[in-house]
């Protein structure tokens, strides 16, 4: 197999954007008896296999993917994690 990179892209709501889903999960966890659970936020995880060796290039590509498709930057922010 080729030397590939695997990326994990985390897309989460920007601070200040209400996250009712996260809140509902937090609430449900508290109700289940998990008293130590504080704030909960829910986001998306997108795992991408990249046929690319160059980390810098990969990162630039992923940033572009996020801007163009993976995140709606009106409400979301993103974070990129790469591993070989």
């Amino acid at each position: 197999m080729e030397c590939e990179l695997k990326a994990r892209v985390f897309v989460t709501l920007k601070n200040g954007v209400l996250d009712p889903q996260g809140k509902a999960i937090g609430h449900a966890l508290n109700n289940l008896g998990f008293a130590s659970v504080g704030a909960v936020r829910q986001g998306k995880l997108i795992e991408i296999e990249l046929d690319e060796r160059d980390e810098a290039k990969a990162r630039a590509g992923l940033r572009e993917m996020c801007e163009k498709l993976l995140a709606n930057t009106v409400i979301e922010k993103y974070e990129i994690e790469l591993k070989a």
Partner: protein
Amino acid sequence: MKSAVVVFPASNCDRDAAVALEQITGNKPAMVWHADSEIPKDTDLIVLPGGFSYGDYLRCGAMARLSRVMQDVIKKAQEGRLILGICNGFQVLTESGLLPGALMRNAALKFVCKPVGLTVTETQNVFTRRYDAGQRVVFPVAHGEGNYVADAETLDRLEGEGRVVFRYAPGENPNGSARDIAGILNEKRNVLGLMPHPERVCDPLLGGTDGRAMFESLIEAVG
């Protein structure tokens, strides 16, 4: 008036929109496939219908925005043609940047289908001129992600410029939308996006005719 309805994969209110348009305008709209490169040249009104384009994958409207025909829709919007996005169509419009803000999951986290009272807050535009300002109408909603979100500045601007066309009537906001916003215009006022379905209330048998005036407004504007 010549109209066109864009059909994305898994659009499902395309027929509803076409039926309403034909009933009111007397002309059958052109049904335009998402993979086509162009909307027919002499089209006055382009409707982006409700449904689950591309399965609502990733985000509602995110994939549809990338489809081929949308390039032309965006171009035609810039040229001043009229664009009406209903429900999923509204989501496509915000994702495309033709309208500001975003539509998030309903605050109650559930899909909601019911008739909802709306106030027509703005009638100085081609879409709602046949309504009275402040008029209460009832349109059904049917969506899981209709919670309109934008930053305060954008919201202020929309309100200040008279671009909020429909608001959910007090106490009837079905999705948690900011400032009860149900439908908005773009700056040039030729693009309207709204979550409720005017095309589902054009036939008295289906529970009302409050939606007709929108199509009649368009006919009046376009001739």
